[in-house]
C-alpha cells in the first residue's frame, strides 16, 4: 500500500526573494529521484504539502506550470513555524513535497474559452502557473482571449515582476497590472485597487468567458459585486480557497466546509458551488 | 434545596421582566442523572426552566469572561470568589453583574456515586439529608455528607462573598476544617514516591482539556499548550508533556484558584488533579497569608510585590 503521507525528497535549487519586505520567497525545488518527478503530474491550480523535516508541513499552491520541466516552484509567505524556518533555508538543503493535491482549475471547461484572471497580493501563485500554462506554445491556441488583472499594495510587493513585464509586452495576453498606491514616478502601469481596475478593464461577461479569482478575502469581497455588475454568472466565476490543512488528502478532517474538503474536493470551487455551502472559510 | 429553585425562578423572572439584566446565567435540568446544564435565560417565561439542587457543581463564573451584556448570575461561595477574581483581572466589570448569592450546602460527587454503584443509575433524587440513587432493581440511600464532592467536603467559604441579593439566608461556615491533609500526605512522600504518585495520577490523561476549559481562571486567548512559536508542550500523551500541562496550568492558577472542583468534575477519566492547585493554595496561604477571591481591593500574591515577601520557594 502506498503511503500518501510520505513526501518525495526534493532539494532546494534556487531561492528568490520576491517582495521588498522579504516576506515572500520563491523556492525552486528539484526531485532527488527522477522517477518521482515523473509521478508528480500536476495541473495549474493544484497545491502540494511542503515538508520540512523536524518542523512540519504547509499546503502551498504550485506556482510553476506543468510545462516547466526539471523543477517545481512555490512562493511561500513567511507567516508561521514552518514557513519561517523555510525562509532561513539555503539552496542545496533537503526537504520534501507531497502531491500534487487538490483539484486544479477546470482546464477542460476552459478549453476554447476566454479567461479573465484576477489576483491580489501573494495569492497570485497558482495564477502564475495558469498563465505560464496557457501562454505555452503548445497550449495558447486552445484558449481565447486572456485578461489578467493583478494588484498588490505597492510595486515592491508584486510577485514575478520580470515575468509580469514580459507578459505585458506580449500581444496574446491583456495585462492590467496595478498597485494600490505608489510614489514611483516611473511606474508604468495602473494605480488603483483590484476591484476598481476590474471594473474598468475586465471584459463584459458572456457564455464563453470565465473568471478565475484568487486573493485575500477583502479583495474578493469587493471584486465580486463588480463581476456581478459585469454580468458574470456564479458558475462562470472560479475561485481557489485556503484553509488550515494537515494531511492534504481528506483524512484529518480539519479543512472541511460542509461536506467538502478544501484539500480534496477543492481548493478550486465555482462561486455557484460556494453559494451552496456554509460560509466557513 | 427545593426552596432554592422556586426562589431562583422568581428572582430570574423579576430581573428579566424589569429588564434589569439582559440575561440570567443559571442551570436547567440535565438529561442524565446528577447533571444539570448551564443555560442563558433570556425571557421571563424561560425562567421557569431554572433549577437548583446538589448537582450544580459546574462553576458558572466560567461563562462570564469577556461578555458585554448585563448578566445576572447565581453564584455559590466558590463561584462568587471567582467573580471577584474576574473583576480584579478585568475580565468583566462589576456594573455588568447582578450577583445572586446562593449559600451552598455542598454538591454531590457524581463520579464517586457512579463508582460506588454496581448497576446503571437511572435516577438520583435528594431530600434535605439524603441522596437516593435508583436503578434497575436497586435503590441506595446515601447520607449527603458521605457523597459530597471532595472540594465541598473541606469547603470553608460556603457563603458568597459578593452579592446583590441572596436566594436564602447565609449558612454557617464550618469551623475547624483541615483543608490540606491530602496535600501533606503527598508532601511526606519521598521524591520517588511523589514521581510514582503523580505518574499514576496522570496516567489516564487524554489531553481533552476539560479541566482547563471548565476552569473560570483559564481564559487565555491562546493557551500555552497551543503556542507554536516556540512550542512549549508536545501534544501527544508523552508523560513529560502530560505532566508539563498539569503542573504549569496549576501554577497559572496559583493564588487564584478557589477550589471550586469544576476541574475534577469535568474530567472524563477521573483524574484528581486538584492536588496540584491545593498544594499551591496551601503555599499561598502559608507564605503570603492569601486566600483567593475574598476582596475586590487586594491583588493576588503573584500579581503584587512586598519587600518582606518570602522567597524560600525560589532557589
Amino acid at each position, binding site marked *: 500500500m502506498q503511503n*500518501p503521507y*510520505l513526501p518525495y525528497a526534493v532539494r532546494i535549487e534556487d531561492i528568490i526573494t520576491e517582495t521588498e519586505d522579504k516576506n515572500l520567497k520563491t523556492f525552486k525545488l528539484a526531485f532527488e529521484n527522477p522517477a518521482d518527478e515523473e509521478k508528480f503530474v500536476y495541473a495549474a491550480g493544484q497545491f502540494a504539502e511542503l515538508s520540512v*523535516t523536524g518542523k512540519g508541513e504547509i499546503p502551498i499552491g504550485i506556482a510553476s506550470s506543468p510545462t516547466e520541466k526539471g523543477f517545481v516552484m512555490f512562493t511561500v509567505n513567511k507567516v508561521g513555524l514552518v514557513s519561517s524556518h523555510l525562509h532561513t533555508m539555503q539552496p542545496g538543503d533537503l526537504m520534501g513535497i507531497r502531491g500534487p493535491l487538490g483539484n486544479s482549475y477546470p482546464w477542460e471547461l476552459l478549453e476554447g474559452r476566454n479567461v479573465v484572471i484576477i489576483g491580489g497580493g501573494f495569492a497570485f501563485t497558482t495564477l502564475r502557473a495558469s498563465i505560464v500554462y496557457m501562454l505555452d506554445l503548445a497550449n495558447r491556441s486552445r484558449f481565447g482571449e486572456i485578461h489578467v488583472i493583478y494588484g498588490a499594495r505597492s510595486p515592491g510587493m508584486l510577485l514575478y515582476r520580470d515575468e509580469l513585464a514580459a507578459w505585458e509586452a506580449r500581444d496574446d495576453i491583456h495585462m492590467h497590472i496595478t498597485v494600490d498606491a505608489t510614489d514611483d514616478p516611473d511606474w508604468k502601469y495602473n494605480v488603483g485597487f483590484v476591484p476598481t481596475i476590474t471594473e474598468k478593464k475586465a471584459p463584459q461577461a458572456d457564455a464563453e468567458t470565465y473568471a478565475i479569482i484568487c486573493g485575500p478575502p477583502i479583495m474578493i469581497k469587493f471584486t465580486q459585486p463588480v463581476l456581478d455588475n459585469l454580468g458574470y454568472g456564479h458558475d462562470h466565476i472560479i475561485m481557489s480557497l485556503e484553509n*488550515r490543512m494537515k494531511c492534504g488528502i481528506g483524512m484529518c*478532517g*480539519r479543512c472541511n466546509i460542509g*461536506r467538502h474538503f478544501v484539500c480534496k474536493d477543492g481548493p478550486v470551487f465555482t462561486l455557484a458551488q460556494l453559494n451552496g455551502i456554509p460560509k466557513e472559510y | 434545596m427545593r426552596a432554592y429553585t422556586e426562589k431562583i425562578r422568581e428572582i430570574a423572572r423579576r430581573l428579566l421582566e424589569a429588564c434589569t439584566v439582559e440575561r440570567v446565567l443559571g442551570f436547567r435540568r440535565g438529561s442524565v442523572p446528577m447533571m444539570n446544564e448551564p443555560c442563558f435565560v433570556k425571557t421571563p417565561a424561560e425562567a421557569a426552566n431554572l433549577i437548583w439542587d446538589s448537582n450544580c457543581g459546574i462553576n458558572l463564573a466560567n461563562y462570564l469572561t469577556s461578555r458585554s451584556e448585563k448578566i445576572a448570575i447565581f453564584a455559590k461561595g466558590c463561584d462568587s470568589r471567582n467573580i471577584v477574581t474576574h473583576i480584579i483581572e478585568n475580565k468583566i466589570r462589576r456594573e455588568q453583574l447582578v450577583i445572586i448569592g446562593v449559600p451552598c450546602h455542598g454538591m454531590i460527587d457524581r463520579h464517586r456515586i457512579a463508582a460506588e454503584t454496581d448497576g446503571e443509575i437511572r435516577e438520583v433524587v435528594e431530600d434535605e439529608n439524603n441522596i437516593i440513587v435508583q436503578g434497575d432493581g436497586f435503590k441506595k440511600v446515601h447520607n449527603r455528607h458521605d457523597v459530597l464532592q471532595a472540594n465541598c467536603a473541606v469547603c470553608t467559604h460556603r457563603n458568597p462573598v459578593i452579592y446583590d441579593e441572596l436566594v436564602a439566608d447565609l449558612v454557617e461556615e464550618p469551623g475547624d476544617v483541615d483543608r490540606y491533609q491530602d496535600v501533606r500526605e503527598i508532601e511526606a512522600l519521598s521524591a520517588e514516591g511523589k514521581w510514582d504518585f503523580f505518574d499514576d495520577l496522570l496516567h489516564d490523561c487524554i489531553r481533552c*482539556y476539560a479541566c482547563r476549559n*471548565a476552569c473560570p481562571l483559564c481564559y487565555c486567548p491562546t493557551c500555552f499548550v497551543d503556542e507554536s512559536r516556540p512550542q512549549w508542550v*508536545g501534544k501527544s500523551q508523552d508523560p513529560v508533556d502530560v505532566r508539563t500541562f498539569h503542573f504549569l496550568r496549576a501554577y497559572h492558577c496559583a493564588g487564584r484558584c478557589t477550589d471550586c472542583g469544576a476541574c475534577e468534575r469535568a474530567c472524563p477519566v477521573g483524574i484528581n488533579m486538584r492536588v496540584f492547585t491545593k498544594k499551591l493554595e496551601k503555599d499561598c496561604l502559608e507564605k503570603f497569608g492569601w486566600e483567593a477571591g475574598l476582596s475586590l481591593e487586594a491583588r493576588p500574591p503573584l500579581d503584587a510585590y512586598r519587600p518582606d515577601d518570602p522567597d524560600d520557594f525560589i532557589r
Partner: protein
Amino acid sequence: MKVIYIEKAQWASGLEKAGDSFRLWGPVRRGPFYAFDKLASGQVPALDFRNTRLSAKGLVYPQSEKMFEYTLDPGQPDHDLLKEAQKDYSPRAVLGIRPCDADAFELVARNFDTPEYQDPYWLRAREAVTLVGLACAAPCSTCFCTSAGSGPFSTKGLDILLVDSGGNFLAQVVTPKGEAFAQAAGWRQTADDTAAAEIETHRQAAEARITAHVPTDRLKQQDTLELHAAPFWDDVAFACINCGTCTYLCPTCWCFDIQDETHGRQGVRLRNWDSCMFPLFTLHGSGHNPRGQKVQRVRQRFMNKLKYYVDKYENGIQCVGCGRCVRHCPVNIDIRKVCELMNSYTLAGDSCAVVS
C-alpha cells in the same frame, strides 16, 4: 450464519490456545471504569462491564501514533529523509467489544479508505485485528444504537458475536476471520438448531430495553444552509466548554493533527487525535479563523455527524449511539436532543426554544 457453542468452562482455555497465534486485548477494570488493555497470558477479559470509558477506536488508531522517523544529523547519509516507523501488525484479537464500537470501525473506514487515498496506518492495523464482540443484554438508558443503524446484537464490523446464554456463549461466526479465530481457540462445537431462535429471543429482549429513540429520518432531506442558519445553535452551544471529551471518547470521531517532535537530532513525525472543538483546529497562519467562535465549532460537530456525513456517504449518521458523549460531557450537552432539533427543524414554523 454459523453459530458455535462455547461452554464458559472452555472460554479461558480457548483464549489461552488462541493466544499462541493472536495477541489478545480485552476490557479490564481500571479504577472506577473499564478500558481495553493487552491481556497477559492466562488473563481473561472482564466481561461484566457495560462499556469501556474510551472507545475501542484507539486499538486501531492510537491517540498518538508514530508515522515516520528521521535524523537531522547532517553527518548521516539519510538525514532529513522520512523513514516509515516500524509497526507490529501481527494478528490481534479484541475480545468483548460491544457491537456499537465494532460498527464504528465500518463508519470510520469510509474516511480512511477512499478510492483516491488509503491510510496505511489505519488500514493495516484494522486488517490485523479480529473483533470478537459481546452482545448487550442490558443496554443503558443512554444507548441509542438502534436509532443509529446499529443495535445491541448488531454484527456490523464484527468477526464473531458472542451472546451470553448463561452457562455458555453462543458465538455467531460472521466472517472468515472469525472462523479462523474460533479454530485457533479450539471452539469447534456447532450449536444446535435452537441457537438461532434463542439468539433472536435475547436480541428482542435487549432491544426492548432501549428507551432512547432518536429520530433521524428527516436529516437527509434537510437543507444544509437552512439547518446551518437555524436559530437553536446559540442555545445548544451555550454550555459547551469546547473541551475534547466528546470527540476523544467517541468511536466515530477521527480527526487528527500531524506534528514533528525532535529531541536533539532525532525525531518523529507523529499524528495525535485532534478535535474540532479546539479553536486551534481551523486557525489559519494569517490569524484568520473560520470557526473562531464557540457556536461555530459546536455547530460544526453536530452538522458533520448528523448532516454532512449523511449527505456524503448516504449511509446514516456518523454516530453509533454508544452514549459516551451523553454520559461524560462535563456540561451535559446531549446529542440526542440536538439530533431531535436538527431532524424536526422546519424553516417556516420554528418554535425552537429548548425546554427541558
